[in-house]
């Protein structure tokens, strides 16, 4: 439910003053976005923890939030910091780096690939298309893939993608440009749907 600017200000003031109810009412609408960002950043196993930590940090830091950025952008920045903290803690705990091939890290491509999600009435070529897309996405760099999925799949704004990934909006646009171009090139070069 969209809130008017006056409602947002009122709820923010109440939340700053300590009202968890106001905080929950205002910030509930951002939960899907934060969950998706956390999912892209840390994977399926830990995204709920990171999302919760993001909200706890936002709650603690809310009195100092001066609305110099939008709430969604602010939350994305916190989510990114929580994801980085999570990686640091995990790397200290496990003394190993989470990489694309780390089974615990749940490679993004496995999260993208979901052959069972196909509608049964889709033709075999669609299956090929999906498989080819998965393969092409897997060949993108981590930065390009994350930017692409946050933007195209999760629908984050450029500004929120920038906040979630810790780069400037210009860098996001650049990454998206190269990611799209590379994806398209790979698909057109290998796909059966090529003219």
């Amino acid at each position, binding site marked *: 439910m969209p809130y008017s600017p006056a409602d947002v200000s009122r709820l923010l003031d109440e939340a700053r003053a300590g009202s968890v109810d106001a905080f929950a009412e205002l910030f509930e609408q951002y939960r899907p976005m934060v969950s998706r960002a956390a999912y892209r950043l840390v994977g399926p196993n830990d995204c709920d923890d990171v999302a919760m930590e993001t909200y706890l940090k936002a709650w603690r830091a809310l009195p100092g939030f001066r609305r110099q950025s939008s709430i969604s952008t602010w939350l994305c920045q916190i989510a990114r910091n929580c994801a980085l903290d999570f990686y640091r803690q995990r790397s200290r705990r496990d003394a190993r780096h989470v990489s694309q091939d780390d089974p615990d890290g749940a490679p993004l491509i496995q999260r993208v690939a979901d052959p069972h999600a196909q509608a049964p009435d889709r033709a075999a070529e*669609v299956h090929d298309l999906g498989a080819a*897309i998965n393969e092409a996405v897997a060949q993108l760099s981590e930065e390009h893939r994350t930017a692409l999925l946050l933007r195209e799949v999760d629908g984050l704004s450029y500004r929120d993608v920038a906040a979630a990934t810790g780069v400037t909006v210009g860098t996001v646009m650049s990454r998206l440009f190269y990611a799209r171009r590379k994806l398209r090139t790979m698909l057109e070069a290998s796909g059966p749907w090529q003219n």
Partner: protein
Amino acid sequence: MAKLTWNQVRDELSRRSASPTPVPADQFWAKFRSQAAREPRTEAVVVPWLWFAPSQAWAAAAAVAVLAGLLWIAGPGGGASTRGAGGGQRLLVSAVEEIHVFVTYSSVLILQDEKNGSTLVWLGNLGKKDKGDS
């Protein structure tokens, strides 16, 4: 077969992309309330808007003043010295003997790393009460 368009790619990607199963709102907020109640909140630091820009300049000036002091202390003949366990090796350790801060602040923290011969000075809440000149 028709030429592949970017919209087709995006639609297919969205359709096949796994999404996190959202935690039910009641469950999420119940857990949030229990955890939030256990942790203290950061109090708002209210700094007058017009004071913001000048305070940045004053903070920079204060940092330069402190830095100059550190350099002087660590310079030839000016630094305190320690001797390592093996003896004979002179290490210059910077030390803060005097701080001049020309804006108000609430706290000062001095951290000295003898191993690396460095000193960090942290001034808290520049522009707040408790005028400091120590």
